């Protein structure tokens, strides 16, 4: 089952669960975080301390709930949801998805039970805890799942829950060689998911959101840079010459660089969504207040009913956009969790950057930066080493060449990535690929310089436009509050403009950080410095047959 199917299934599960089936209801206080333990060992149930797959009570009240997804030994999925109307009123739906399909628990008092020959399920709610247990006979033997969620969250797993850009990068640099080998697929998947999510932005109703009032900047565009990427099928486990070994080390450093870049992309995208949401929620409050006032004015017979309809329509769109963005944000966090190798359901958050009022972006000398980037490029150095190795290898060693720009489409999987043989016969191709990497590097510098230039030029425009726009909207609101003639169309247009300029302000500030990060990547500085030093030495060189 691929990820898409998994998500569809989960969505379906919750859709079905949402019907009017009997539910276990608990009214009372079960506030804040819960400690959640899971074990498959019955003996350890009472004292288990493993953190589980629970998306918990830290999320906002609108989405208050816990989702539990588990796979048994046969990798089949179990899913159930505890959802609540509020932190003080939660419900455990009695329909649970198990490998055979949906089962309904027999609800009695505060517990629900299901018992069949190969499957026993029990779920209970109390003032203090949520209890959930599965005993199943699977093809591969007996399997138990026990989840206990109780008050007083003990975040003792030692994992960080709030990430700054620095701590994210540190986490990435701690990725081990073994995990990274497994992570290649995940890494690509996440990169693609992140890009795909960014592409979803236009589905927002109010086009000014996240795009700026005149589409001055595009964060997804700024974030989407990706250099062609070469890596061995299995690091350090092949016959190799010194040059090949060094090439693999550089390849690994490139992977780390891409991972740091991906982490930064997640950080900036999530920061953008968080900051945008914060602004949008503020605007939503203002628009709700305004709508209520206009609505009251209409109801009271002081205003034309059309005025309220216009504001109400815009309010609905903004609400819908806030929900969409919240959903996207959750997806981004889930992607980041996967990227970091954390349980998806354990909440993580981002320490938002403090945005400068006057973003500083250095002027870029394209020629100079390109020259420096070419000199320092890990990718080009790797290609040089591969070419050098190829010249000495008569027998081919397979490397994969990942070029998202060339293959396009985020559904392209790992298996379809072109392969390169590191052998004398492939030297020309390797040189051609090096030329491609060099060209893309040059294009990246050009693109970087272009965005930096736009940000530099537009920053003062955005600043003054924002001041004027704020004044205009304030004046409109004063009109409304003082009982003067109120033109709703005019107001919502001005309001949307202000929203756009606010978003542009956030984007300009974030772009200044993104540009700094991109420059560091191009010049292998800052977070991208000394990546080669982090690269593991690998296993000793072993000649085949020895």
């Amino acid at each position, binding site marked *: 089952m691929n990820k898409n199917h998994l998500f569809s299934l989960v969505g379906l599960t919750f859709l079905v669960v949402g019907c009017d089936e009997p539910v276990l209801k608990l009214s009372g206080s079960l506030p804040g975080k819960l400690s959640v333990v899971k074990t498959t060992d019955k003996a350890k149930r009472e004292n288990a301390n493993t953190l589980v797959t629970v998306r918990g009570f830290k999320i906002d009240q609108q989405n208050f709930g816990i989702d539990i997804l588990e796979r048994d030994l046969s990798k089949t999925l179990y899913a159930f949801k505890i959802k609540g109307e509020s932190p003080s009123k939660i419900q455990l739906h009695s329909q649970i998805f198990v490998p055979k399909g949906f089962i309904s628990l027999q609800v009695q008092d505060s517990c629900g039970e299901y018992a069949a020959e190969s499957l026993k399920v029990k779920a209970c709610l109390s003032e203090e805890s949520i209890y959930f247990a599965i005993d199943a006979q699977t093809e591969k033997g007996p399997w138990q799942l026990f989840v206990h969620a109780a008050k007083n969250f003990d975040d003792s797993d030692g994992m960080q829950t709030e990430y700054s850009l620095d701590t994210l990068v540190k986490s990435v640099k701690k990725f081990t060689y073994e995990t990274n080998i497994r992570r290649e697929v995940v890494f690509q998947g996440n990169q693609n998911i992140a890009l795909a999510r960014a592409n979803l932005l236009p589905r927002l109703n109010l086009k000014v959101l996240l795009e700026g009032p005149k589409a001055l900047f595009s964060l997804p565009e700024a974030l989407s840079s990706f250099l062609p990427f070469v890596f061995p099928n299995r690091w350090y486990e092949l016959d190799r010459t010194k040059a090949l070994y060094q090439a693999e080390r550089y390849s690994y450093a490139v992977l780390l660089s891409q991972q740091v870049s991906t982490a930064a992309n997640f950080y900036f995208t999530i920061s953008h969504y968080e900051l945008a949401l914060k602004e949008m929620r503020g605007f939503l409050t203002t628009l709700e207040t305004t709508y*209520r*006032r206009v*609505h*009251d*004015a*209409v*109801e*009271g*017979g*002081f*205003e*034309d*009913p059309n005025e309220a309809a216009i504001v109400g329509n815009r309010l609905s769109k903004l609400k819908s956009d806030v929900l969409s963005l919240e959903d996207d944000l959750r997806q981004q966090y889930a992607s980041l969790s996967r990227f970091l190798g954390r349980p998806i359901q354990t909440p993580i958050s981002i320490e938002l950057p403090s945005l400068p009022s006057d973003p500083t972006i250095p002027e870029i000398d394209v020629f100079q930066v390109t020259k420096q980037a070419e000199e320092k490029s890990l990718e080009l150095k790797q290609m040089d080493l591969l070419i050098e190795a190829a010249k000495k290898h008569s027998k081919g060693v397979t490397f994969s060449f990942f070029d998202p720009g060339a293959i396009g489409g985020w559904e392209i999987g790992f298996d379809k990535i072109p392969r390169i043989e590191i052998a004398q016969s492939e030297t020309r191709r390797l040189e051609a690929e090096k030329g491609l990497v060099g060209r893309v590097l040059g294009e990246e510098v050009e693109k970087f310089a272009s965005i930096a230039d736009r940000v530099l030029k537009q920053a003062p425009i955005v600043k003054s436009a924002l001041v004027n726009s704020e004044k205009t909207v304030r004046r409109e609101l004063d009109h409304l509050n003082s*009982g003067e003639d109120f033109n709703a169309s005019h107001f919502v247009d001005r309001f949307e403009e202000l929203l756009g300029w606010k978003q542009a302000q956030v984007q300009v500030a974030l772009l200044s950080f993104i540009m700094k990060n991109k420059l560091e990547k191009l010049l292998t500085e800052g977070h991208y410095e000394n990546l080669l030093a982090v690269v593991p030495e690998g296993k000793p060189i072993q000649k085949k047959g020895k």
Partner: protein
Amino acid sequence: MKNLFRGKVVGATLSTLFLAAIAGCGSDDARRREIAQIEGEEAAKKQVETENRNRDQRAKAMEEDLAQRDNFIDALTGDFVGTYTRIDSIYGEQKWEVHMNLTSSLPTYKPPQRVRSPEEIAVDLAKIAIRPTVKETNLDSGNTFGCDYGDVLPDYNYGMFQAKASSCNKQYFVSLALPDTTDENPIPKDSQIKMARALMSGALLRVDELTVIITSNFDREKRIVQLKRKLPNE
């Protein structure tokens, strides 16, 4: 030098005698003219006196009229509050408070010691009016709306007035008692007419309750609301 002075004195004496002789010829005509003049002055004086008396009487009547209007408006001056409920399509039952502030366009009139000219009084008569300002507050949301209706001339005989202005989307028909119909020209009740008279005469010094029919440019529905005087300590 002496001769010259003597000659001048003799000349002046002769001239005087000549003039006296001429005057003695027309003395009857002069007398008649004198009498006519005296009679004319007396007539004129009488006429002026009559005119003044009439003017004073008119002024007095105007002062009385002004005082009656002033009594009427003065009795209405103050704050009146009432509530009504309407079912809102989104927020359900909403309670609205109507606050009507009535002031006089002229400060309370105190007659001066002197008798004012009718022209002076006419200016006041033309100016005197009620100034209604109405605010409506949704008591659930706290949102307040309102309008200032400027100078409104009341119907002193029937005890009613209409707060209406082109810049305001709501109109308030105010009467001392609930009229029989909510038509635009409702027929006042006898009690209302009697009350209006009592107000003008000063027999009734204060109105504590008003009936208001509220209409809106955007709403066909008419609302009848009873407003009660809001006392200063309330």
